[in-house]
C-alpha cells in the first residue's frame, strides 16, 4: 500500500481546510494506505500528526509515495518541501484571499496572502501529477496560473455535516433564539473579505423597513490581530441603530452551530471572496434558505438553491430576505432545492467518490 503525506500550514478540527485534510487522510487510511499529516504548527496533535521537519523521513525518497499539499496561504517551507519531493505530488487548492482585503489592518496578512498568490503560479508550474480544486472557480485560477488542464479536477472539500446531523442541537441556544424574532444567520470567520459590512447594511434596511423583530447572528471566530475590524463592525451597527440586534458569536461548538442553523430563518452571505464556502453547504444540508451576494465561487456552490445577486445592494438583500421569510412557498422551494443540491453534489460520500476517482491514476 502507498505511503501518503498530507501537508498543510494548519490542520485543525473546526475549519474548512482542517476538516478536508483530516477526512481525506481518514478515507485513504481506511483503504489501507499509510497516512500521516504534516504541519509546521499544530493546534492539537493526533496519533499520526507530525512536524513538517519529519516529512523527508516519512517519504524516504520513495517514488511511489504521494504528497498531498493543501494550498491556502503563502508558506515557503511547505512549497520548498513540495519542490524537493521525489514522490508523486498532488496539490489541493482551497484559494488564497487577495491581500488587498487586509490592507490597513495590523499583522502581516497582506504579505502572507500576496505570497500565497505568487506561490500559486509556482505550484501551477511545478509539474505536479494532479491539481485538485475545491470549486470550478479555483480550478479556473489554477489553469490561468499555468496548471495543465488535463491534470486538473474539482473535488469539493470534505466537511463536518455528518457530525452536525448526528449531534443534538444546543438547548440553551435553541431556547434563547426562540422568542418570535426573525433570525438571520451568517457563519464565517470575522475577516474583512467576508463582507460583514454589507450584511450589516442589509440587516439595517431589513430591520427598519421590513421587520423590527429581527436579529442578525454573525457566528465566527475573530481573526488573529483583527479586533479593530470587529470594532468597526460594532461602530457601523451602532451608527445604524441596530447594535442591540446584531449578535457577534465567537467560537461555537458543533451543538451550538446546529442550534443556530435550526433557529435561522435565512442564511445570508455577502462575502467578497470565497473559494468554496462550506457554510453554504451546511445551510443547504440543514434546510436553511440562502440569500447571497454572488461573487467568486459562491454562484457555483449555491447554484439554483438560493437567491444570488450580482451586487450587495442592501435593499435587494433585505427584500430577498423578506420574500423568503414571508412566502412559505418560496422558502420551501429554496430549501428543497438546497437539500437536493447537497445530496447530489456535496455529501461526504459523493465527495469521497470524486476524490478517489481523481486520485485513481496515482493510488488504487
Amino acid at each position, binding site marked *: 500500500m502507498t505511503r501518503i503525506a498530507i501537508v498543510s500550514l494548519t490542520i485543525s478540527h473546526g475549519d474548512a481546510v482542517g476538516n478536508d485534510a483530516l477526512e481525506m487522510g481518514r478515507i485513504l487510511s481506511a483503504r489501507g494506505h499509510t497516512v500521516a499529516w504534516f504541519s509546521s504548527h499544530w493546534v492539537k496533535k493526533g496519533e499520526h500528526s507530525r512536524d*513538517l521537519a519529519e516529512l523527508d523521513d516519512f517519504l524516504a525518497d520513495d517514488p511511489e509515495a504521494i504528497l498531498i499539499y493543501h494550498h491556502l496561504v503563502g508558506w515557503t517551507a511547505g512549497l520548498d518541501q513540495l519542490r524537493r519531493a521525489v514522490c508523486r505530488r498532488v496539490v489541493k487548492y482551497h484559494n488564497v484571499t487577495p491581500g488587498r482585503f487586509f490592507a490597513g489592518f495590523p499583522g502581516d496578512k497582506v504579505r502572507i496572502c500576496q505570497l500565497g498568490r505568487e506561490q500559486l503560479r509556482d505550484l501551477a508550474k511545478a509539474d505536479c501529477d494532479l491539481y485538485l480544486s475545491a470549486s470550478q472557480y479555483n480550478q479556473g485560477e489554477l489553469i490561468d496560473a499555468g496548471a495543465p488542464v488535463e491534470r486538473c479536477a474539482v473535488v469539493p472539500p470534505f466537511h463536518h455535516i455528518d457530525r452536525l446531523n448526528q449531534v443534538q442541537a444546543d438547548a440553551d441556544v435553541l431556547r434563547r433564539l426562540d422568542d418570535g424574532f426573525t433570525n438571520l444567520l451568517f457563519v464565517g470567520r470575522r475577516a474583512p473579505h467576508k463582507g460583514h459590512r454589507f450584511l450589516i447594511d442589509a440587516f439595517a434596511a431589513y430591520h427598519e*423597513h421590513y421587520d423590527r423583530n429581527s436579529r442578525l447572528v454573525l457566528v465566527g471566530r475573530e481573526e488573529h490581530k483583527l479586533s479593530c475590524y470587529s470594532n468597526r463592525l460594532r461602530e457601523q451597527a451602532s451608527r445604524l*441603530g441596530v447594535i442591540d440586534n446584531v449578535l457577534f458569536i*465567537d467560537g461555537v461548538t458543533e451543538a451550538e452551530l446546529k442550534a443556530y442553523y435550526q433557529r435561522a430563518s435565512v442564511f445570508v452571505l455577502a462575502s467578497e471572496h470565497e473559494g468554496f464556502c462550506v457554510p453554504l453547504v451546511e445551510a443547504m444540508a440543514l434546510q436553511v434558505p440562502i440569500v447571497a451576494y454572488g461573487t467568486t465561487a459562491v454562484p457555483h456552490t449555491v447554484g439554483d438553491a438560493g437567491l444570488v445577486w450580482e451586487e450587495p445592494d442592501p435593499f435587494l438583500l433585505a427584500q*430577498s430576505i423578506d420574500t423568503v421569510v414571508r412566502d412559505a412557498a418560496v422558502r420551501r422551494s429554496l430549501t428543497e432545492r438546497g437539500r437536493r443540491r447537497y445530496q447530489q453534489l456535496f455529501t461526504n460520500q459523493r465527495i469521497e467518490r470524486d476524490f478517489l476517482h481523481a486520485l485513481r491514476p496515482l493510488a488504487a
Partner: protein
Amino acid sequence: MSGMNQSDLDIDELKARIREQASAMRERAAAATPLPPDGSSVWSFNWLEVKSRLKIAAGLAQLGVLPLLPRFHGVKRQLALAASRVVLYVTRFLTTRQSDFNVCALDALRGIGEALHAVETRVVQQQEQIRLLEATISQLQLRVASIGTPRRGELERKAS
C-alpha cells in the same frame, strides 16, 4: 405564490419581482423620516454573545501553556520551545496565581451574567404583565363609560 412546488419556482421571475419591490422600498425609505431607535431595545443583554466571549476567555485563562511559535521551524523552533519552557518554569510562582485569579474572575462573571440575564427576563415578563393589565383597565374604563349615567346612578345607589 401559495401552492407552488419547487419545479414551479421561476428564480429569474422571482428575482425580477424582488428587484422591483426593492426599488420601490428604497424610494419610500428615502422619502420617509428615519424611525427613532426601538425603545424596547434600550436595555438589552446579548447573553449568547457574552457566553461565547466567556468561552474564549476560559480558553485563555490558564497561563503556563507553551506558545505555538508558528514562525519558527526546525532547530530554531526546538530552541524557542525550550526557552519558552524555561521562562514558563521560572515564572510559575506568578502564572499559577494569575491562572487561579483568572478562573475565579471568570466564574464570577459567568454568575453575574446569568443573574443579569434572569433579571432581564423577569423585567421583560413584568413589562408584558403591566401592558396586559393596562389593556384590561382601558377596556373596563370603556365599558364603564358606555353604561349610561342613570343606570350607573342606580347601580351606585344599590351599592351604597
